[in-house]
């Protein structure tokens, strides 16, 4: 049966007889030659499917590429002037945006076996500043001078069997290299495999004092562990060592490979399964402190990274005309090949809490790095059309997840601490053993449940209504008590033994019976009830004694409607209530009502507008500033009452402080987007977002107004296959405000004088103050009966939180981004230019009362009215000139110019002053300005 008589048959080569196929083959060959001739110098890199692993529904690794090949393939190929339709006019998306003119397709080569193939490779040499070491330049890319295999791709197909193979790769041998291969049978099955490396350079100005970066043991190169003689002597030694240390890089590389199999089990059923393994190695900025509360000394150290993550995923998908079903199971196993990291300590430590142990003891510190963890998930998604019930649709999603971690815990210290005591109890061999712990392994677990039900109905052709209920819950069953069974001591030995936080019976006379020993709690042997039964007031209220197993429940109730006003316009409205129930947070419950109105009109002449407005109001149950008593030492005994007791630690925070994730919040969000077809070859777009949030009940914390406003303009000009121009500009301005209060003191029986200049003191006015005209405007005496109220509230007369000690910070961002590009085909050469210019500035200004905070005039002169601006400017120009040298080869001259300037006050002065105080050592001078011109000469060969 010939094709003409049975046009319902597909036009594959199998439908022709042998003579016909041979004739067609010759015709195709002639056609190919013609196309190749026409495509002189065309970069014939076919856009092979860069075989990443994920789809839009599950998984990461959705793109393979790097900075020189950002997932776009070769954009310098010839475009087809006839477009898609043979008409010179370029077609537009339903919104009105121009489709790009398609590339001229490549005609593959044929083999005798029936396979056809095509491919290309681009390789050459990079020079200029490709070996620039600046961290911002190299943040996520790896360039270097020398030979460079930029990209390659191969496609092959055996049409009579519907089989295909594709392979891509680029950046070969570099830390941002990528490879992918995909093979299978169209509409049947396929296998995808990939390997992708992603570098991340954190800093290139780190002066490392250690060897062994990336391992579990960092050893000092030229300094004595534990310091020398004293901190005053050790500091200059460190400075001298740093002066002789070159800058180095802290970075890591993610190396990830995986394989995925997809198959159509039938027309309705599909199966997929995948495995990936990611290895991360390197080092990133880290730090360490000694002593307790930061008093002993701090030094920046590198964190060694050696991670493996195994991810498994499998799923079934079913779909027919009425029903869709997705079932999937996933497992993710994270393994840290460096459980603990030991580092030589360059500081001379002054300890606190622990007595009798010399400072030189602490020659090393030890971190318990991120523990191994396992994640498991099972999920089902179901959708059912209800054609006979208002043309409705029902959806249901259920998901169960488990996060589990059960690493062996390490002892609080690696030192025997011989000769030491903590509150009169010997430390010798009592803290360098896991017997000092209440449990030997973490046994940490969080279970997550999700149930999502939705129903959508169409009562009329123009109206759709939908409702949804969503329930999401996390349940944390982790439990750990900080009490040493060997000694009965509640609390924690800090920072390898150089500090401690141990609640003991309060020693201020009058709180506890005369003769109460420091060790009185110890006799209870870590039995909380027995300890509480002693009825002894603890020494402080803020000693942590138990972990806090945060978890929450989230409920979302949504009701929405969509009304089609006309063929091209519609209105929609959605009301959603989101409720949170949280364990162990300041608010048991918060609820947020969200009303959103939207409008879409695609029928405006030559334009499309989309706009929405959303108003949200979040409120909640009563705010308790301190819900944490059960987890802290305040729960060990009654409140203090004795005069002279410093009770500040029983007050967690002032009662008018609001944590922003729980605080009352009113928010308005306006989004609008307008696309307009200016001409047949030109379209423009404008988009804006106005976001304004207020925290009406937050006197302290993030408060006042938080704004973020954005405006974007873009244009796209495609007059012909030879020329295309694009441009965009984006503006964003944001503002965030917060108020804080520097705490003062709160001692029972003490009278606090509040002065007219805002200062608070417990003494009478000095002669100087009197001479300056300062007066006492009020006084407050703290009593046992009222200290929680008087000191817990921020007020003009609060001894602990006097409002005169309030400070506030306003942070304002401004960002501008400009981009443009030009593609021009001269006929004998092609030019491709892309340029972006980004500039950002963050201004941090503050207000404060210098007198209240005890600041001198000299200090005020340095403090000023704000921090220096954070600034970042970056220009990137990419230019390529493609010159054909034969039908299958072309040269590409490549030029990339990057310039970056950055100012970050966090790093001001670190390079010159790395040890600005005794026992404070900073080794990372931070991001630096850079300028780089990279040139490349590549040869593109097609086959």
């Amino acid at each position, binding site marked *: 049966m010939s094709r003409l008589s049975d046009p319902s048959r597909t036009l594959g080569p199998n439908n022709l007889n042998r003579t016909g196929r041979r004739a067609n083959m010759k015709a195709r060959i002639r056609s190919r030659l013609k196309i190749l001739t026409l495509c002189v110098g065309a970069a014939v890199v076919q856009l092979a499917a860069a075989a990443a692993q994920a789809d839009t529904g599950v998984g990461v690794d959705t793109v393979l590429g790097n900075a020189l090949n950002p997932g*776009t393939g070769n954009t310098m190929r010839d475009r087809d002037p006839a477009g898609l339709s043979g008409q010179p006019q370029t077609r537009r998306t339903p919104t009105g945006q121009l489709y790009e003119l398609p590339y001229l397709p490549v005609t593959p080569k044929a083999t005798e076996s029936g396979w056809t193939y095509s491919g290309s490779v681009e390789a050459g040499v990079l020079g200029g500043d490709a070996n620039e070491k600046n961290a911002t330049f190299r943040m996520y890319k790896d360039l270097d001078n020398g030979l460079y295999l930029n990209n390659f791709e191969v496609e092959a197909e055996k049409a009579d069997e519907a089989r295909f193979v594709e392979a891509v790769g680029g950046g070969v041998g570099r830390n941002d290299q990528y490879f992918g291969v995909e093979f299978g049978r169209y509409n049947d099955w396929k296998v995808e495999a990939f390997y992708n490396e992603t570098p991340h350079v954190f800093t290139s100005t780190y002066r490392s004092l250690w060897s062994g970066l990336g391992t579990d043991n960092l050893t000092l190169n030229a300094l004595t562990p534990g310091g020398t003689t004293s901190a005053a002597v050790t500091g200059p030694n460190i400075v001298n060592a740093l002066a002789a240390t070159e800058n180095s890089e802290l970075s890591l590389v993610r190396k990830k490979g995986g394989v995925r199999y997809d198959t159509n089990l039938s027309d309705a059923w599909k199966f997929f399964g995948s495995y990936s393994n990611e290895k991360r190695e390197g080092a990133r900025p880290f730090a360490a402190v000694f002593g307790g509360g930061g008093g002993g000394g701090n030094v920046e150290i590198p964190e060694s990274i050696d991670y493996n993550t195994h991810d498994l995923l499998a799923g079934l998908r079913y779909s027919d005309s009425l029903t869709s079903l997705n079932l999937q199971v996933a497992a993710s196993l994270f393994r840290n090949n460096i459980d603990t990291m030991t580092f030589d300590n360059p500081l001379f430590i002054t300890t606190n809490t622990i007595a009798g142990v010399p400072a030189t003891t602490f020659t090393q510190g030890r971190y318990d790095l991120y523990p191994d963890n396992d994640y498991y998930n099972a999920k089902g998604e179901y959708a059912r059309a209800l054609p006979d019930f208002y043309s409705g649709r029902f959806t249901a999603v259920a998901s169960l997840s488990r996060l589990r971690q059960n690493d062996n815990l390490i002892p609080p210290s690696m030192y025997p601490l011989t000769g030491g005591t903590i509150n009169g109890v010997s430390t010798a061999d009592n803290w360098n053993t896991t017997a000092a712990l209440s449990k030997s392994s973490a046994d940490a677990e969080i279970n997550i449940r999700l149930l999502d039900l939705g129903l959508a109905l169409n009562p009329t052709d123009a109206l759709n209504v939908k409702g949804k209920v969503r329930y999401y819950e996390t349940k944390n069953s982790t439990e750990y008590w900080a009490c040493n069974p060997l000694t009965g001591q509640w609390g924690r030995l800090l920072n390898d033994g150089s500090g401690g936080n141990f609640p003991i019976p309060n020693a201020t006379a009058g709180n506890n019976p005369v003769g109460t020993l420091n060790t009185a709690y110890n006799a209870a042997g870590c039995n909380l009830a027995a300890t509480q039964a002693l009825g002894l007031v603890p020494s402080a209220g803020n000693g942590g004694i138990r972990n806090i197993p945060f978890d929450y429940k989230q409920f979302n109730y949504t009701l929405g409607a969509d009304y089609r006003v006309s063929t091209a316009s519609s209105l929609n409205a959605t009301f959603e209530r989101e409720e949170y129930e949280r364990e162990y947070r300041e608010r048991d419950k918060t609820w947020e009502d969200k009303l959103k109105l939207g409008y879409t009109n695609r029928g405006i002449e030559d334009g499309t507008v989309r706009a929405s407005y959303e108003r949200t109001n979040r409120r909640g149950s009563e705010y308790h500033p301190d819900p944490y008593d059960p987890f802290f030492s305040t729960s060990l005994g009654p409140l203090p009452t004795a005069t002279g007791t410093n009770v500040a630690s029983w007050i967690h925070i002032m009662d008018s402080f609001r944590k922003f994730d729980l605080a009352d919040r009113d928010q308005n969000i306006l989004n609008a987007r307008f696309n307009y077809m200016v001409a047949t070859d030109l379209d423009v777009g404008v988009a804006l977002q106005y976001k304004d949030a207020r925290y009406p009940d937050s006197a302290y914390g*993030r408060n006042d107004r938080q704004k973020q406003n954005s405006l974007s303009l873009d244009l796209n000009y495609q007059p012909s296959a030879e020329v295309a121009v694009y441009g965009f500009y984006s503006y964003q301005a944001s503002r965030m405000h917060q108020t804080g209060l520097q705490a003062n003191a709160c001692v029972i029986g003490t009278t606090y004088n509040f002065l007219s200049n805002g200062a608070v003191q417990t003494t009478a006015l000095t002669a100087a103050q009197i001479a300056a005209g300062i007066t006492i405007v009020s006084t407050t005496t703290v009593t046992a009966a009222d200290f929680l109220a008087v000191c817990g509230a921020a007020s003009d007369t609060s001894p602990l939180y006097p409002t005169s000690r309030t400070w506030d910070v306003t942070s304002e961002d401004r960002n501008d981004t400009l981009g443009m590009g030009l593609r021009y085909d001269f006929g004998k050469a092609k030019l491709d230019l892309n340029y972006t210019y980004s500039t950002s500035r963050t201004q941090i200004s503050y207000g404060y009362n210098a007198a209240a905070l005890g600041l001198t005039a000299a200090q005020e002169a340095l403090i000023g009215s704000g921090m220096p601006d954070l600034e970042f400017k970056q220009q990137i120009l990419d230019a390529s000139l493609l010159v054909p040298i034969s039908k299958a080869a072309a040269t590409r001259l490549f030029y990339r110019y990057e310039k970056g300037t950055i100012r970050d006050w966090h790093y001001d002065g670190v390079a010159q002053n790395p040890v600005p105080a005794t026992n404070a050592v900073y080794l990372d001078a931070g991001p630096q300005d850079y300028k780089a011109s990279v040139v490349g000469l590549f040869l593109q060969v097609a086959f």
Partner: protein
Amino acid sequence: MRIQNSLCIIRARLAAVAAVTALALFGSPAMAAAPESAPESAPATYVGEKACLQCHEPANKHFGHTLHAKVFRLNPKNDTERQVCEACHGPGSKHVSKVDDKNFIISFTREWGTPIEKQNTQCLQCHKGGQRLHWPGSTHASNKLGCSDCHNPMANASAKGLLKKASISETCYTCHQQQRAEFKKRSHMPVPEGKMSCEDCHNPHGSTTKPLLKADSVNEVCYPCHAEKRGPFLWEHAPVRENCINCHSPHGSNHDKLLVSSRPQLCQQCHSPSVGHPGQFFRNDQTAASALIGGAQSARVIGRSCQNCHTQIHGSNHPSGARFQR
């Protein structure tokens, strides 16, 4: 041009008549076609790819290299797929008889004007379920986006996904310019560098979450790449456990580590205890530079700020790690 179009149409009609005749004699009952002279109220019928190519050969030049063409021509699994052109554009008999009537064929461009719902329904007849199970009622669907607002199945503009632009991210940027600018900030996800795309975190076809996340919560989106922060830890940090974007801006930030605000100010938006330093006023005389001219340095200002001491800020597994210092 007019004569050429007319010839094209004549050839198409002849091909359609031939197809109808052949079907009447040899074709399956499911494909039975009404004769050309059937009343206008009769539904359109399939005319076959050959008829389409009489006029639309330029389109076929590009379409023939796409995945749809491979599937339809080389290994179709059902009658719909075997129609090739008409699998997407619908039965073409009426279009052949009256090519300028936009009601007689489904097209996916603005110029033709086929209603969005009809366009999307046509795509979803094969592509519903799976990754697109949540498309109906999703944010993009509610904004009346057509599948062809993001996809162009008629040509290979992108490496995968038959997108209208060369990459996933460029396709998203045509509407989401704000996010494109955010990826240009000082700290950002490696999207411009080709190592991530928008689809690593979002499912543009719909999801159970409002921001079209690819997982059940923000944190479960972040954990696949940041598995070390998954924990759970012995000592947890509340805002971390609940939502990564309490502290981080997912696309880009002017601050280090994609933080939403500068340290220590960010930390002070939650921490102002009665004892110790978190509630203190930190200021410009505490930098390392200021220390050279009379200031007094503070580890809470310089470099990593609060993380100079509280390094394990995402959670600690050290038995003494309640303050995240080990």
